């Protein structure tokens, strides 16, 4: 299709009217409210389903929720998670939970924040939280160990409390939990 272009008038071809128009636009923007966010002082609110850094959580009674099943380690695409299972010793700190991780390291330099670990976790023990700017002065520092992950993760208010109920059920049936 041939588009017919309008002939410019002499006045328009002078180029000056458009120039003045442009000056008007830029002058308007000059005085407009600025959109820059002064980052370190001023931070954006992270949306509720944001996928930040993955951290481990404890439940409201203070039990480390991870049972060292290693599903997250298995599913992790960049192999950022390394779990040392407890072996026959068990390693859990509370009653009827059999296992807990001896060590739990996440290499934040490898992590791609995909959220598969959170998705796959049967115990709701790992969550992608709101942190998005992780910094450190060495590679070693960027490998977060269990204590650090738990400290950063905080407490997860568990509404189901699966292991407490199992203990109650066992008691109800007259079996030792």
């Amino acid at each position: 299709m041939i588009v017919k272009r309008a002939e410019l008038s002499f006045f328009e071809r002078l180029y000056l009217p458009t120039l003045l128009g442009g000056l008007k636009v830029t002058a308007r923007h000059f005085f407009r409210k600025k959109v820059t966010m002064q980052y370190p002082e001023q931070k954006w609110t992270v949306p509720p389903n944001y996928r930040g850094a993955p951290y481990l959580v404890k439940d409201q009674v203070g039990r480390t929720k991870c049972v060292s099943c290693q599903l997250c380690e298995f599913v992790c695409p960049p192999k950022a998670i390394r779990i040392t299972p407890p072996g026959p010793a068990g390693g859990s700190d509370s009653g009827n939970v059999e296992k807990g991780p001896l060590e739990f390291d996440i290499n934040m330099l490898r992590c791609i924040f995909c959220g598969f670990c959170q998705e796959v976790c049967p115990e709701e023990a790992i969550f992608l939280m709101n942190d998005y700017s992780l910094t450190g002065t060495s590679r070693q520092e960027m490998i977060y160990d269990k204590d650090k992950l738990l400290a950063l993760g905080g407490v997860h208010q568990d509404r189901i409390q699966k292991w407490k109920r199992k203990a109650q059920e066992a008691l109800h049936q007259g079996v030792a939990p």
Partner: protein
Amino acid sequence: MNLEFLLFSALKVVGVFALVMPMIAYSVMAERKISAWIQDRVGPNRVGPQGMLQPLADGIKFLLKEDFTPAHVRKAYFWLAPAIAMVPAFLTMAVIPFGSTIGHQKMVIADLNVGILYTFGIVSLGVYGIVLAGYASNSKYPFLGGIRSSAQMISYELAMGLAVIPVFMLVGDLNLSKVIEYQSNHGWLVLYAPFSFVIFLVSSFAETNRLPFDMPESESELVAGYHTEYSSMKFALFFMGEYANMISASAMMVTLFFGGWTLPWFSEPALSNAWMYGALHIGVFIAKMLAFMVLFIWIRWMLPRFRYDQLMDLGWRRFLPFALLNVLAYAVWLWVRA
């Protein structure tokens, strides 16, 4: 040529230098701030109060960066080019009267009788720095930048030179102090020669390689144009040269068309002594100059770059004949009036 003359000339040179160098630094700052505001950003605001010490940080950065000379360049010219780009910009400031008198000294470094000819002579040297940089870099983008620059500068210098002829026909003298004297008696020359002013303004945009005529640099096509291969202080010299050029172009426009250091329309305030008048006049001159600097920056952040052939077309086929006609018209007018 006595001792007093030498002493005061040296003082004026140092004074102008001491004033222009910070002005260059702060016009870079102004460039960054104004561009930010036009783009709805806030601009640099971290170094010092409101970012006012940013030029200092820039300067330190340039000094401390590695001064890298690529292996493939033509070394001697490569080192020479930044200096050649920088010097003419400063030389043109020598003839510009930046104030009336302080004591018995005229506030101009060299009160030449052929002020404007000197200016055009020096300005045309400015292109050598860029061409040399393009040639010395020995790689394609700087080379193209250098070629474009030389073509552009030659085309616009002609129009620029022709544009100011009517001004001097009206004044009847090539001395820039006389031009200002004429303007204080008869009013600003921009009112007498508006077309000359428009041509001069546009040409000075081209001469200083500012958008919309920044062909030699044109970041989007030529990486950084003629200074692609430069780093550290050598790059800084090109950068300072560009801003020094802007300052001298602004000063030139103020002198030729906007009355220089004189105050228009207002009667001068009654000040207690002559020294204060001298200071006031310098202040007026700087204020007018800064207004032009802001215009330079403002235009830059508004217009897209001209295409190379459009640039040439504008220079040779529009401005040159128009400037010639302009000269002819004034000649006829003056002849009829006489």
